[in-house]
C-alpha cells in the first residue's frame, strides 16, 4: 500500500466520521452538478431534437416572411404562419427538375391541443427524421380517404385512442377552438414514437382539410350554409393554398441555386429556407438565455465550493491535534496538505457522481413530460465531451477550494510541531 493510498483511505474515513456536517456540503456540490450538467444536456437535446426532425429536408418553402418563423411553424408547429402559399405554385415547384420530392403541409386545426397536419401520401414515402428514417405506422394503416386520421404516438397514448375511434377536430388551436363536430374523423392508424414533433401531431389528407372547411370562411362557419359530411364529395376538394412545402433535392449541392430560383421567380413572393440556417438563427437566440443560465449555475457552483472550503476550514481547528499525531508518525507537511485537500476532492467526486445519478433520474422521470409538452426528446446517452469538460471543471474547482484549507493545515503543522500549547 503506497503512502498516497494510505492518505486517501485516512481522508475518506475522517470525512465519513464527520458525515453530518459534510453531507450538507455534498448536497451543494450535487445541486451544482445537476444544474450545470442538466443545462448542458437540455441544451444539446433541444438542439438535437430540432435538427433531428428536419434532417431529411433540403428546403422549406412558404409565403415570404421570417424564415425562422416559417420553419418553426411548418416543421415544429410552433407559433403561427403569416400567410399561405398557393397550391398551383407548390405544384409548379414540385415539377422542377432539381426537385426529388415535395411534401405539402397544411396547418391550422387541432385536436385537444395537438396540431392537425394535412399532407399527402408523400409524407409516408419521403419525409425523413433522424438520419434517414421514414415515419412508421405501428397500428392500422395510412390515411386513404376523407375523414381518416393517423395519430402520432403521444397523441394516441396521451388521449387513449385506438384505431376505429371517432374524433372531432377543432378549428384553430386556441383556448376555445370551435368544433368541426359535423364532420367526425375516424382513427385509421397510429405512428411509432420518433422523438420529434410527429409524435404530437395528427395526420389527415389535404382533401379532408378542404372538406371540413368547405362551409367556413375566414375562421367562422358561413351563416345559413351547411354541407353535410356525406355531401362534400360533390365539391372540388383540391386545396387552394397550403402552409408550406417541404422539399428534397436530387443533389444537395444545388440547394442555393434552387433557393434563388424560387425566391426570384415571378408572381407570388415566396421564401425558400434552408432549415439548418434557420435553426442556427434560433440557436443564437437561445444562446443568450443559455449564457445567463450558465452564469447563474456557475455562481451557484462557486458559492457551493466556497461553502465546502469554509466548512473544512472551520473543522480544521478541532483537527489540529489529529494533524500533530500524524506528523509524529512521520507524515510530512506535504502529506497533511494532501490529506486535507483530498477531503474536498473526495466530496467533489462524490458530489459529481451523485449529481450525475440524480440528473439521470430526473431525465428518466421527466422525459415523457418534456416530450409531450415541449417536444424535446431527452435521450439517455453517455456523457458528451462537453459534459466531461464540465465535470472536470467542477472537479478542478473542488480541488482549488480544497487547497485553501490544505495550505492552512500546512502552516498549522509547521508551527504546532507535535503539541500545540493550548
Amino acid at each position: 500500500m503506497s503512502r498516497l493510498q494510505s492518505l486517501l483511505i485516512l481522508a475518506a474515513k475522517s470525512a465519513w466520521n464527520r458525515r453530518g456536517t459534510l453531507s450538507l456540503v455534498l448536497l451543494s456540490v450535487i445541486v451544482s452538478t445537476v444544474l450545470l450538467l442538466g443545462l448542458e444536456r437540455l441544451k444539446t437535446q433541444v438542439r438535437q431534437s430540432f435538427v433531428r426532425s428536419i434532417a431529411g429536408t433540403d428546403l422549406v418553402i412558404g409565403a415570404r416572411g421570417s424564415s425562422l418563423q416559417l420553419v418553426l411553424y411548418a416543421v415544429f408547429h410552433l407559433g403561427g404562419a403569416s400567410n399561405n402559399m398557393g397550391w398551383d405554385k407548390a405544384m409548379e415547384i414540385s415539377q422542377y427538375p432539381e426537385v426529388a420530392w415535395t411534401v405539402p403541409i397544411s396547418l391550422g386545426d387541432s385536436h385537444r391541443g395537438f396540431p392537425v397536419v394535412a399532407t399527402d401520401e408523400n409524407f409516408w414515402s419521403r419525409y425523413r427524421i433522424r438520419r434517414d428514417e421514414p415515419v412508421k405506422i405501428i397500428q392500422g394503416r395510412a390515411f386513404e380517404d376523407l375523414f381518416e386520421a393517423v395519430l402520432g404516438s403521444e397523441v394516441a397514448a396521451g388521449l387513449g385512442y385506438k384505431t376505429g375511434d371517432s374524433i372531432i377536430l377543432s378549428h384553430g388551436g386556441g383556448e376555445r377552438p370551435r368544433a368541426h363536430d359535423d364532420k367526425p374523423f375516424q382513427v385509421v392508424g397510429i405512428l411509432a414514437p420518433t422523438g420529434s414533433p410527429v409524435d404530437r401531431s395528427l395526420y389527415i389528407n389535404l382533401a379532408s382539410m378542404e372538406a371540413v372547411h368547405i362551409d367556413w370562411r375566414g375562421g367562422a362557419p358561413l351563416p345559413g350554409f351547411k354541407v353535410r359530411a356525406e355531401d362534400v364529395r360533390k365539391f372540388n376538394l383540391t386545396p387552394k393554398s397550403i402552409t408550406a412545402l417541404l422539399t428534397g433535392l436530387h443533389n444537395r449541392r444545388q440547394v442555393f441555386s434552387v433557393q434563388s430560383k424560387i425566391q426570384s421567380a415571378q408572381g407570388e413572393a415566396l421564401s425558400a429556407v434552408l432549415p439548418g440556417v434557420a435553426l442556427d438563427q434560433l440557436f443564437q437566440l437561445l444562446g443568450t438565455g443559455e449564457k445567463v443560465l450558465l452564469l447563474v449555475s456557475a455562481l451557484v457552483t462557486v458559492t457551493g465550493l466556497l461553502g465546502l472550503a469554509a466548512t473544512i476550514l472551520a473543522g480544521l481547528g478541532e483537527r489540529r491535534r489529529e494533524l500533530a499525531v500524524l506528523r509524529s508518525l512521520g507524515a510530512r507537511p506535504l502529506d497533511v496538505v494532501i490529506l486535507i485537500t483530498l477531503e474536498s476532492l473526495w466530496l467533489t467526486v462524490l458530489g459529481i457522481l451523485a449529481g450525475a445519478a440524480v440528473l439521470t433520474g430526473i431525465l428518466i422521470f421527466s422525459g415523457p413530460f418534456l416530450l409531450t409538452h415541449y417536444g424535446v426528446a431527452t435521450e439517455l446517452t453517455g456523457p458528451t465531451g462537453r459534459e466531461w469538460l464540465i465535470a472536470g471543471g467542477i472537479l478542478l474547482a473542488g480541488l482549488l477550494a480544497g487547497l485553501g484549507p490544505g495550505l492552512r493545515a500546512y502552516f498549522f503543522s509547521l508551527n504546532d510541531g507535535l503539541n500545540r500549547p493550548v
Partner: protein
Amino acid sequence: MTDRISQPPTVRLQNVSFAWPGQAPIIDIQELTVNPGETVFLAGPSGSGKSTLLNLIGGLILPQKGDVFLGDLTLSSLSGPARDRLRGDRIGFIFQEFNLLPYLSVEDNVTLPARLSLLRRRRAQEAFGSVQKSAQALLTGLDLEESLWSRKVTALSAGQRQRVAAARALLGRPPLIMADEPTSALDADHRLAFVDLLLSESRKAGAGVLFVSHDRSLADRFSVSLSFSSLGLKQSDNYTPAEAQK
C-alpha cells in the same frame, strides 16, 4: 541484537540551544544521551521546555546551536522530508492525551505507523507474520482485551486510550519510545500500572524510552532519572524554585 557497546546512542544531544521565534531560549542542553534499551526519566516543571525537547529530537524543529543525533544520523544534516521519515521509522510517540484518531478503530489506530513507515511495517510483519497480528499481540500485552479491538477509540476510558497509544508507539519496534507526560490524564492508581506496563513492553521490544514528566513519583521505575534543570548550563538560572515546585 549485536553488542550494545559498539552501537551509537539512540539519541544524543550536544550543546543544543533552541528558542521559539521571538522568545527567550527555552532549551540549553550540554549533553543528553539515551543508549539502546535504556529507560530515561526526565523531570521538569510545566513550561520548562520538555515538549519542545521532544520536537527537537523528533526533527520537527532544528536547534539554533548544537546537534541532535539519532543513532548514526545528524538531524541538521537531513532534509525536512528525510527527518519526517526518520521520525516515523525510529520513534514511537505517546502524548499527554489525544493520541488517537477518533475515526479509526482501536486496531486501526495501532497499525497506523505501518501505513506511514515502510520500515515499521516490515518489522511488524517479521515479528508476528502480519501487521495485524503484531498489533493484536501488543494490545494483549498491554491488557486490552479482544472485545475492544474493533471498538471506536472514543468508547474507551482514558487509561485504555493511553495503553492503545503505547501499543501504537511500540508497533514495528522503533528503537526509541518518547512519552510526553502520558500519565497526567490518568488517576493516581493507574499511573504506576501504566508506566510499568509501558516499560515492560518496551523492554520486550528492546526499545529505549525517554519519558518526560513533572511527576517525580514515577522516576524510580526508570534506569536513569534526570532533572531538566540539571541538563543545561543556564537552566538553573532561568527557573525559580517556585516554578520548579509545580
